């Protein structure tokens, strides 16, 4: 078929950038071939289970895999589109572009009028001892395994890197029931958005700044990792090294644009670290220095899906202009303005700097930081508490609120401001925020307690009336509470409302079921779990004897053999005092289980 071998447009890569480029071109009537080497289209989106940030017009608050599904559906309804899946563009040659169909190992040559390269990026690799051991995986690979195929990547994971990807994947690992031992970050600050970091810390994952991984342990698979601190020049300080028992080391230190094809086409590339490494030189219509070749998405600089989609549309519309002589210029200009607006926040400063080096201007703006208005006045009213203080490009809280009580405003990088007067307490914003940064609160002064709504995305979902642990911002147990209400949301971010003592109402940011997960015992005789003991220590019982009286710990038949040392260890960890400083409590007789009769001695025996 000639339109297949001589299409108007060839799009390489069916991620968000490529799919949107194809949609624009095909809807203007261009014959379009999309080639993608994955087993299904969608690029990175198919494994993104979290809800996306950004602008509602570009699927903010929709989960990644749903975005891919919707774009594909739109394309499948169009004429003049050929989708070649499991097919790889293996190079760019004088006489055409060979496409290799992987399963059949056959090649066909395409001679398109225009090409949009939307090949995305590949994971950066980190140098450390034994880093080629099976079980050292890129963060994207871990996501693919667990979110696309439902296969556990491991049981205990060390995450390397605290950018958005490292933070999001850590959270997703917990959702899949995998333990994340720690996130190590070589810099002295967390790389990703504050809301993502909070989400991970709430799950109890420690983020260790100024730390890196120096060695993977194992022979045929990872059995452990050695991490250590770094000095001010980022050199490991060997004396601080410690070993972690993990079976997977997940590398999330960034992505490299996949520029091979554009370079082969003769497009100039330039090293711009702010954009991820070598990137194609291009103009603001996404045209490379090779006239017939365009770029869009991560290949043109590592950013986000929202910008990838807009760039794809810009490239598509420009190709339409090239081949048809005209295009929807109004749409094109408004998309370009949208890109500028999206990038004008403080978290995009690096991107702006990178684009400046390419000669592309992107302005920055002053930001408005929201002040919750006059909270005292609304005490006792059910209302959201929005813990989103960093200017990031995101606004689903605003667009989802049915009463218009939340304003981010025209500048999507502004911080949300809430008008409690307009709010009806419905809790929708809590379930829509992709950062899980919105909590509900209602004080109950007469009971000296408060109702707190927590966004919840784990299984099992607690039920009304169930007893749960109330967790703080770092996943620590603060107290116990009872679930008052469960607000089930179709987007699977549910709202769990619990009652908590008034004095900790501002601290409760998570819940965990008591009965189902808390099976880690300290004391077998009295069936006391780690959380029971931690809670008592938090409640101020910081001495062994006090704990014993409070919990009956070490008063069972084993006489404290099982639990004493563990309890002392917990006391020491929690209070920071060495074990020797604690009195171990009285070692009461009998030291083995004995009946009263046996102690009463011969006399009793005679009586019988």
């Amino acid at each position, binding site marked *: 078929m000639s339109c297949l071998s001589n299409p108007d447009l060839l799009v390489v890569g069916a991620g968000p950038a490529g799919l949107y480029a194809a949609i624009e071109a095909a809807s203007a009537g261009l014959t379009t071939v999309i080639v993608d080497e994955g087993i299904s289209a969608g690029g990175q989106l198919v494994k993104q289970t979290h809800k996306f940030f950004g602008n509602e017009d570009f699927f903010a608050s929709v989960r990644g895999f749903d975005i891919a599904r919707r774009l594909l559906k739109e394309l499948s309804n169009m004429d003049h589109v050929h989708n070649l899946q499991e097919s790889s563009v293996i190079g760019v040659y004088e006489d055409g572009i060979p496409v290799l169909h*992987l399963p059949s190992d056959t090649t066909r040559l395409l001679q398109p009028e225009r090409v949009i390269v939307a090949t995305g990026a*590949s*994971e950066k690799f980190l140098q450390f001892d034994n880093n080629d*051991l*099976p079980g050292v*995986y890129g963060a994207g*690979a871990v996501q*693919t*395994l667990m979110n696309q195929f439902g*296969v556990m990547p491991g049981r205990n994971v060390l995450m390397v890197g605290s950018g958005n990807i490292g933070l999001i994947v850590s959270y997703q690992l917990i959702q899949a029931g995998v333990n994340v031992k720690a996130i190590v970050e070589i810099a002295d600050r967390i790389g990703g958005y504050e809301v993502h970091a909070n989400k991970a810390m709430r799950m109890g994952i420690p983020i260790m700044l100024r730390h890196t991984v120096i060695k993977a342990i194992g022979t045929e698979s990872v059995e452990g990792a050695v991490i250590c601190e770094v000095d001010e020049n980022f050199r490991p300080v060997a004396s601080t090294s410690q070993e972690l028992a993990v079976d997977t080391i997940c590398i999330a230190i960034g992505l490299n644009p996949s520029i091979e094809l554009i370079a082969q086409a003769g497009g100039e590339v330039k090293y711009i670290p702010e954009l991820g490494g070598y990137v194609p030189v291009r103009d603001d219509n996404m045209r490379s220095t090779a006239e017939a070749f365009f770029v869009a998405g991560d290949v043109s600089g590592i950013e986000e899906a929202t910008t990838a989609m807009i760039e794809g549309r810009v490239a598509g519309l420009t190709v339409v202009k090239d081949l048809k002589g005209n295009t929807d210029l109004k749409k094109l200009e408004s998309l370009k303005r949208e890109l500028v607006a999206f990038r004008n926040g403080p978290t995009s400063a690096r991107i702006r700097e990178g684009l400046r080096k390419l000669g592309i201007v992107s302005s920055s703006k002053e930001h408005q930081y929201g002040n919750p208005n006059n909270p005292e006045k609304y005490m006792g009213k059910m209302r959201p508490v929005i813990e989103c203080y960093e200017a990031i490009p995101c606004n689903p809280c605003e667009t989802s609120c049915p009463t218009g009580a939340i304003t981010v405003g025209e500048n999507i990088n502004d911080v949300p401001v809430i008008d409690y007067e307009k709010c009806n307490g419905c809790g929708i914003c809590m379930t829509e925020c992709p950062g899980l940064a919105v909590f509900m609160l209602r004080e109950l002064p007469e009971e000296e307690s408060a109702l707190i709504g927590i966004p919840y995305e784990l299984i099992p979902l607690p039920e009304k009336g169930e007893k749960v642990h109330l967790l703080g911002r770092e996943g620590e147990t603060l107290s116990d509470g009872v679930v008052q209400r469960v607000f089930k949301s179709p987007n699977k971010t549910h709202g769990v409302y619990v009652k908590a003592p008034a004095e900790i109402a501002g601290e409760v940011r998570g819940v965990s079921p008591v009965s189902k997960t808390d099976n880690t015992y300290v004391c077998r005789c009295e069936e006391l779990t780690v959380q029971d003991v931690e809670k008592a220590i938090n409640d101020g019982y910081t001495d062994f004897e006090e704990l014993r009286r409070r919990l009956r710990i070490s008063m069972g038949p084993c006489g404290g053999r099982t639990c004493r040392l563990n309890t002392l260890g917990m006391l020491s960890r929690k209070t920071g005092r060495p074990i020797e400083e604690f009195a171990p409590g009285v070692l009461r007789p009998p030291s083995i289980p004995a009946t009263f009769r046996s102690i009463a001695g011969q006399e009793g025996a005679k009586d019988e």
Partner: protein
Amino acid sequence: MSRLAQHPVIEFVRGKKISFEFEGRKLGAFEGETVAAALHAEGIRYLRSSPGRQRAQGFFCAIGKCSSCLMEVDGMPNVRTCITLVRDGMVVRRQKGKGELLE
């Protein structure tokens, strides 16, 4: 490393149950899985031994970019198993050395 039975936000729709051969062992898989994912679900992470120093290696990127997952599939070397669907009756072997490279 087993398959996830349930997940808070994803419903896994698995294909037909099939079987394939790995180093002479018969293993189960589901249609729609890649070879690398199916092996991983059976606890197999060691996919090839490196050409030079014969080190055990597994996959790294899982999206076809790093060539760390090259195996011999149905007699063909250098197959990127992270983007190759497993098929019923497939014969998969650890690749030792370079295989044959297209130049």
